[in-house]
């Protein structure tokens, strides 16, 4: 069965569900709402990009502004920038494929099979996103670096040389891929939970084996989520800068983000080059999104209809233990191993000393710096994650549930910042808010605004992929039964997309709690966060303290995830 087979489940193409048929007043109202949404999103997402680009292409000469393309010429004429673009494409595609394979397999095994301790495994599998990327990369340096890597030391002792070198293309792809795989897993898992099992049951009744069912029914039906997750993984990896700087620069594998980072460290900085390189990344992002749109064009992926269902669990016999072992191996490599290394580093007097101390852990509650930055991090993260999710839901609803003219523009606007490295986007945010007469510059709000603008697309992707699976008939029934728009939203739509909303909130929360590059150009002492404290500590070579701060960040991420999951579970129990 192909995805087209499911087309009949959704609304006929080109025909508008009655719920959304337009009357003139309705059109006017919708246009008003759309304009408002566009204005809000423009302030958050578009204007910072425009400010960055303007700053890059406009110079002051003799007191007047002139347009200049010298940066374009520089970038086009120097091979280093071409190599950086090529390296970015290679590493990002490699990381995307790795993340998609791991993410889809994990999601399917954990949601649709009877693998033991599935819930626990799923929670553990999301943990890599709570580890700040540069800490994860450092952990992998300690595992796979030549001469001192934990993996290389015994191999060398046994006469096998040094099989691992983390400072290679493969090392980069591996380190980035395994840490972004949970994003794919979360999106696909959410879609699998929302999938009507009757489709698979029908396939099996028709004689398809389990594997055939998985490949011909399950995967095509959750294809939007897989594509959405993969594109997200691609766009995250083109915008990452910590890992490429730490691992790539050592062997002079420069990615575009590393070039941007270098440019911003220079004097005088060429904002033109930063802008051109940011445009490179935006083009890559737009291409990825267009390809996704093209691949899904004309298909419907509605799987949630008016019928009640529970996700179908495939009973694996002894194979469940094999599957569990493979998942544990993944967790060992991505979560358990690096966490053990970070714990070991945090209780060491210095890295690999073999001498232990509690001082670095005690620093967490003794230091005034930790207390104040922890408070700032929590406030910024919770406010920004909540606002991002609410705005993401609004955009998703407008793009997936309405026929408003220009709704695609809205989607494109929120997707653009996704591919721009946080550091460059944060600069755009600072330029924009420095220009406007009323300002949040220098306050905690500018960080929150920057985070929302940069990451709203993550929420949109996560929620939209779930929303398009829900047949409008559910909402239509509610409206016919006399529910207003608000009641329908509150009592029908929101409960159905709640797993995606929660997953979106947890996802952006996890990014914000360890976000460094967005905060770096925008913070002051009163808005200093834990990640800034980690970075400052790292800059003076105190890796053991950095490791203990990373543990705290990990705890904040996992603790909140556990809390949210616990609350959700309680609600589910109460509902049944």
């Amino acid at each position, binding site marked *: 069965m192909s995805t087209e087979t499911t087309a009949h489940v959704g609304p006929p193409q080109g025909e508008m569900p009655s719920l959304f048929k337009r009357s003139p007043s309705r059109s006017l109202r919708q246009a008003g709402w759309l304009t408002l949404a566009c204005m809000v999103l423009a302030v958050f997402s578009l204007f910072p990009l425009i400010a960055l680009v303007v700053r890059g292409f406009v110079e002051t000469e003799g007191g007047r502004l002139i347009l200049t393309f010298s940066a374009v010429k520089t970038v086009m004429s120097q091979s*280093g920038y071409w190599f950086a673009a090529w390296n970015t494409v290679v590493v990002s595609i490699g990381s995307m494929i790795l993340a998609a394979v791991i993410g889809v397999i994990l999601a399917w095994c954990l949601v649709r099979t009877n693998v033991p301790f599935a819930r626990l495994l799923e929670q553990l599998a999301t943990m890599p996103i709570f580890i700040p990327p540069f800490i994860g990369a*450092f952990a992998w*340096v*300690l595992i796979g*670096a*030549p*001469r*001192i890597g934990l993996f290389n030391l015994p191999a060398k002792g046994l006469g096998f040389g040094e099989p691992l070198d983390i400072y290679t293309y493969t090392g980069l792809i591996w380190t980035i891929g395994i840490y972004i795989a949970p994003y794919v897993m979360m999106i696909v898992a959410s879609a699998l939970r929302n999938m009507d099992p009757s489709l698979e049951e029908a396939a099996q009744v028709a004689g398809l084996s389990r594997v055939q069912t998985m490949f011909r029914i399950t995967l095509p039906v959750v294809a939007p989520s897989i594509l959405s997750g993969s594109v997200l993984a691609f766009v995250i990896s083109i915008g990452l800068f910590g890992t490429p*700087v*730490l691992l790539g*620069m*050592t*062997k*002079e594998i*420069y990615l575009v983000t590393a070039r941007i980072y*270098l*440019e*911003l*460290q*220079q*004097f*005088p*900085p060429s904002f033109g080059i930063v802008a051109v390189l940011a445009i490179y990344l935006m083009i890559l992002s737009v291409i990825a999104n267009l390809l996704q749109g093209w691949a899904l064009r004309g298909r419907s992926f509605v799987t949630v209809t008016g019928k009640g269902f529970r996700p179908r669990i495939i009973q694996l016999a002894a194979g469940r233990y094999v599957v569990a072992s493979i998942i544990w191996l993944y967790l060992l490599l991505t979560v358990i191993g690096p966490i053990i290394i970070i714990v070991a580093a945090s209780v060491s*007097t*210095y*890295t*690999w*000393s073999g*001498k232990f101390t509690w001082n670095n852990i005690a620093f967490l509650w003794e230091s005034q*710096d930790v207390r104040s930055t922890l408070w700032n991090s929590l406030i910024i993260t919770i406010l920004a994650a909540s606002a991002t999710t609410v705005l993401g839901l609004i955009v998703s609803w407008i793009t997936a549930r309405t026929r408003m003219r220009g709704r695609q523009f809205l989607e494109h606007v929120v997707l653009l910042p996704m591919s721009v490295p946080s550091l460059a986007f944060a600069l755009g945010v*600072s*330029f924009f808010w*420095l*220009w406007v007469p009323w*300002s949040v*510059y*220098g306050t905690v709000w500018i960080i929150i605004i920057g985070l929302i603008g940069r990451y709203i697309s993550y929420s949109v992707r996560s929620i939209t992929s779930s929303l398009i699976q829900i047949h409008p008939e559910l909402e239509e029934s509610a409206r016919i039964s006399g529910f207003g728009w608000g009641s329908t939203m509150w009592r029908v739509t929101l409960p159905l997309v709640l797993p995606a909303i929660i997953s979106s909130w947890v996802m952006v929360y996890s990014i914000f709690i360890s976000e460094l590059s967005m905060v*770096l*150009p925008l*913070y*002051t*002492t*009163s808005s200093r966060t834990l990640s800034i404290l980690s*970075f*400052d500590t*790292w*800059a*003076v*070579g*105190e*890796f*053991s303290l950095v490791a203990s701060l990373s543990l705290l960040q990990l705890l904040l991420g996992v603790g909140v995830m556990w809390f949210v999951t616990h609350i959700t579970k309680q609600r589910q129990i109460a509902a049944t």
Partner: protein
Amino acid sequence: MTSTKTRRGVLRGLATASTLALLASLSVTQSARAADAALIAAAEKEGQIVVYGDPFTVPLLLKAFGAKYPKIKVTSATGDGWQIYNRFVAENGANRPLMDVMYQAEDTVITAKTSGYLANFTSSEVGSLTKLGLPAGGGYVRGNGNLIMFAYNHEAMAKKPLPKDWTDYITPPAEWEGLGAMSNPGSSSATFATIAALYQTYGAEKGGAILKGFRSAKGELNPSMGVMATKLQTGERPLDFFNITTAVSGIIAKGAPVTMAVPASGGVAQFNAIGISAKAPNPNAARLLADFALTAEMQAVFSEAGVYPVRTGVASPKGLPVLTEVKLMDLDLEKALKDRETILNWWATSTGFSYR
């Protein structure tokens, strides 16, 4: 008699003169104290101060300043020198000056001064500073020093030859292959100071041979000196071409098997300087903080934390060589900044690394 009278007269004259001198000095001290009190009152009236600068020393400074002047709210942004400098320039360009005091690598402060962003400032504490604390050009003061020298992991290098001088890198021993690391002079002020000192001391040819030798031994480029320090302690890259005391003294104090050694031709002294913004929104608080940074009290805090003081009578940090006694390479930083592009391109050509 005459002589007695004369002697008495002289003695009386001396006594009068001494009394007058004492009264005069008391009056000066009192007026200085009055000025200090006036400055403190004016600073407290402003009620706040914004400091940009170095992530290691600025938090120490602000903690001590905040404790002494609790009525003044302190805000800061710290980070890599040029990145913070670019932020300051962007704010000034947008006519939104926020920063009062810049406390960071001297090259950024000189650049700010020559670009007209700083007020001409001399601290009332300059009389108590060492020769190294006073910049040749004036207009700002130095707040603390750092020393740049060879650094190596003595366990990993136990059976290998060690560098004694910069010129040892011209023909590096085979045992150094793949062990060395350095950072980027385009982004790191300390690295630029060292590369500039090599350029000015040895000239383009011999200095270039040193850099080529470093690269021929498969030396690698690291993003920062902090990363180099971490690789130094783990033994991944046990031979830093050079490193700075602020990045390494902490791990040495914790017992890491790392040694810093002054090259025979000299190490490089690098300073954090204090500049007051020409558009400082809180000029009195700025002045008060700048003076406070140079007090014996604050300089002792710096020394305790492993940073070199620039005030006379305050000892160098424990376990580190005494700055005034160490052999240093000559470095004309103002000239080096004028030749910045040339020096960076020379470094890039010699090492094959890209600085941007």
